[in-house]
């Protein structure tokens, strides 16, 4: 056990820091500028780092990926784009795609020449994703897709989508799903931004009416879609592990500063014993998240997959983030709810979860999403109970019979 970084990692961190100082744009005004920044990161070897070299990546160690993301968080660097493409779609094609699919799509994902979204969740298939009803009808050389998707990140700017659709309604629900690549620029695909409680629209609804998918864009075989969605190994795992905590830490220091300036009952809030207790608790929790990230990185560096252990990590940090933001709101009072017009010392000067310039109000509202997306806390607890603790499964009626 040695929690010091190796000399090699320290040197790499320094190199990244220097590069960011020299290359980082101060402001990103539109998608084209963000794509240009994305491209610059890619060309410097700081994007898609975990992808195998033969497909345009660096074959980098998880620690190197974590260091790049961490340095970007530390510098307040703008986020790159096409994160689902780089993080999920690309690795899925690498593992399950045909040679023709790999040649056609992979490089343009890394360069953000083609933007990707993931068409998984539906209005009635959220936590119970396998209940999805979007249908892909086999017409020989192509499929005809009908259905509705929701919570599609980046749907408004996507050129392509990774689609889960039902190809056989007569078999048990997990077995009748297939995985496709679908062209988003066609008359049968209608993308509508979904306005969230933040007032912004990171997500979309996607309506597919007789949309067309060529047979060559089926990934794997018919009926294998559920397995593909479950077993996809991201190459960017670990990537956000440290960066997330570094962002929290810079927010915490701003919050401390606010607690020095703001007063309650004639004294700085920071002198209030109750608030000090809450601040001490949150810093302890934040650091425990960081220690956990170091454990995760240790596993990844050894080539081990955290498996269901990832559910413990996600459950822990997403629930932490809600408590953190609730404390921030408590200290900041009505300043914490401003979306505009806050005095400079009570503004949040770090990137938001999606890479835009943030406010405390936005960060607070966004914290409600973390315990829902990518498997709600309740789903994570089921996974932990069943797969790590080996607790008996619930009696479920949906593992038998068809979907209709």
């Amino acid at each position: 056990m040695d929690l010091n970084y190796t000399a090699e990692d320290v040197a790499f961190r320094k190199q990244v820091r220097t590069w960011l100082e020299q290359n980082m744009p101060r402001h990103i005004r539109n998608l084209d500028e963000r794509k240009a920044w994305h491209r610059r990161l890619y060309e410097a070897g700081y994007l898609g780092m975990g992808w195998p070299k033969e497909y345009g990546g660096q074959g980098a160690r998880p620690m190197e990926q974590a260091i790049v993301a961490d340095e970007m968080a530390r510098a307040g660097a703008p986020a790159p784009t096409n994160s689902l493409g780089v993080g999920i779609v690309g690795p899925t094609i690498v593992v399950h795609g045909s040679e023709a699919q790999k040649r056609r799509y992979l490089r343009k994902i890394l360069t953000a020449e083609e933007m990707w979204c993931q068409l998984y969740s539906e209005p009635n298939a959220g936590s119970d994703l396998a209940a999805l009803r979007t249908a892909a009808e086999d017409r020989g050389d192509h499929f005809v897709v009908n259905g509705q998707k929701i919570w599609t990140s980046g749907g408004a700017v996507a050129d392509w989508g990774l689609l889960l659709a039902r190809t056989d309604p007569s078999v048990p629900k997990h077995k009748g799903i297939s995985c496709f690549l679908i062209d988003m620029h066609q008359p049968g695909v209608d993308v509508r931004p979904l306005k969230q409680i933040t007032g912004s629209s990171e997500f979309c609804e996607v309506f597919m009416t007789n949309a067309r998918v060529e047979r060559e864009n089926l990934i794997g075989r018919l009926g294998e879609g559920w397995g593909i969605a479950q077993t996809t190994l991201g190459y960017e795992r670990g990537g956000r592990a440290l960066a997330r905590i570094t962002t929290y830490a810079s927010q915490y220091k701003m919050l401390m500063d606010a607690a020095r300036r703001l007063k309650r009952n004639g004294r700085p809030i920071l002198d209030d014993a109750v608030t000090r207790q809450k601040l001490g608790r949150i810093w302890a929790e934040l650091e425990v998240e960081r220690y956990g990230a170091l454990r995760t990185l240790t596993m990844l560096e050894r080539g081990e997959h955290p498996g269901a252990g990832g559910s413990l990590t996600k459950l822990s940090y997403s629930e932490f983030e809600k408590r953190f933001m609730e404390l921030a709101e408590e200290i900041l009072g009505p300043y914490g709810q401003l979306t505009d017009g806050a005095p400079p010392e009570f503004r949040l000067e770090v990137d938001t979860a999606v890479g835009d310039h943030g406010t405390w109000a936005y960060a607070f509202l966004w914290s409600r999403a973390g315990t829902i997306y990518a498997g709600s806390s309740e789903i994570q607890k089921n996974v932990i109970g069943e797969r790590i603790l080996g607790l008996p499964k619930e009696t479920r009626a949906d593992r038998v019979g068809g979907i209709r």
Partner: protein
Amino acid sequence: MNFSFSEDQVLLRNSVRAALDEQCTPAHVRAMAEDPRGYSEALWGEMAKLGWLGLPFAEEQGGAGLGLVELALVLEEMGRAAYPGPYFASVVLGGLGIQLGGSPAQKEKWLPAIASGQARASAALLEDTLDWDPTSTAATATRAGDGWRLTGLKRFVPWAHVADVVLMPARTPEGLSLFLVDPRAAGVTLTPMVGIDLSNRWSEMRLDGVAVPADALVGRAGDAQGVLDALLRRAAVGASAEMLGAARRCLDMSVAYVKVREQFGQLIGSFQAIRHRCAEMLMEVENCHSAVYYAAWALTAGAGDAPAAASICKSYVSEAARKVCGDAIQVHGGIGFTWEYDLHLYFKRAKALEPLYGDAAHHREQIVRGFTAP
């Protein structure tokens, strides 16, 4: 960067666990609760032979020269077994205290004796205000001839009734100072303080002008603060390791129980109300593991954030262990509330350690001071 145990560390943990599983059964814990001295000399001798009693001391003092990560591994197992005996008092409080502040002669006198099991040490770090800030010390030491006279009232001195030497702070004209005192010396009165934890013993220690020689002074007069801060951090992390072990035991017992207990015609582990609680317990136990071993490493390595890490560890684990052990009683239902069932041994072990060496509130204040100190 490597946050995993070495092969040697895994071997150490396995051998400690195997020895305690065999010799420190719940029946043993219960038997020792009825024993006048409260611990087994046979097991103590075994622990000396296995090298546990000198684990963190230098090799020239009969120790194994290992760090706090290894010590935490042993302590976690002791918490897991609710080991009844003066291990923590002797090795962590007395032993590390002498190692941190003692003169070469004091180390030579006491550390080999502690390591071999011939002597047992402890430390008297608390007085009647229960303030863990050493500056609250009211006990006094006045010069008398070549030596000193100690007067004061210490509370919650662990295993003082079987100790050969107790490390204690007292005020001198030069400031806060540390002394070694024989708890059987004339003028010392020990009175048992009986708590709910069956696996620990405490005494009130009254000192009425107790005469000690000049070489009872540890370090220089007025120089105790640094040693006490360092010792309290190690004690806080060591106690957290024991709480982690107790919490893991409670989790393991709960998971095993909900896999066999049936109600409404089903195993209760299949109910989400139970399963989700067990998942939260595991999350807390794993977070405690991170906090304990990070802090143990940081203290050993002298990392810049070691003081903060110790406070983060104790504040986090104090509450998380309480929750996990309490939830274990809850998922067991009625049987978890019976004296006969063993769960309360570990629940109480964790509870006893919660306020010691600084409770969560004490350490949270330390964390915030770390940010606001000039």
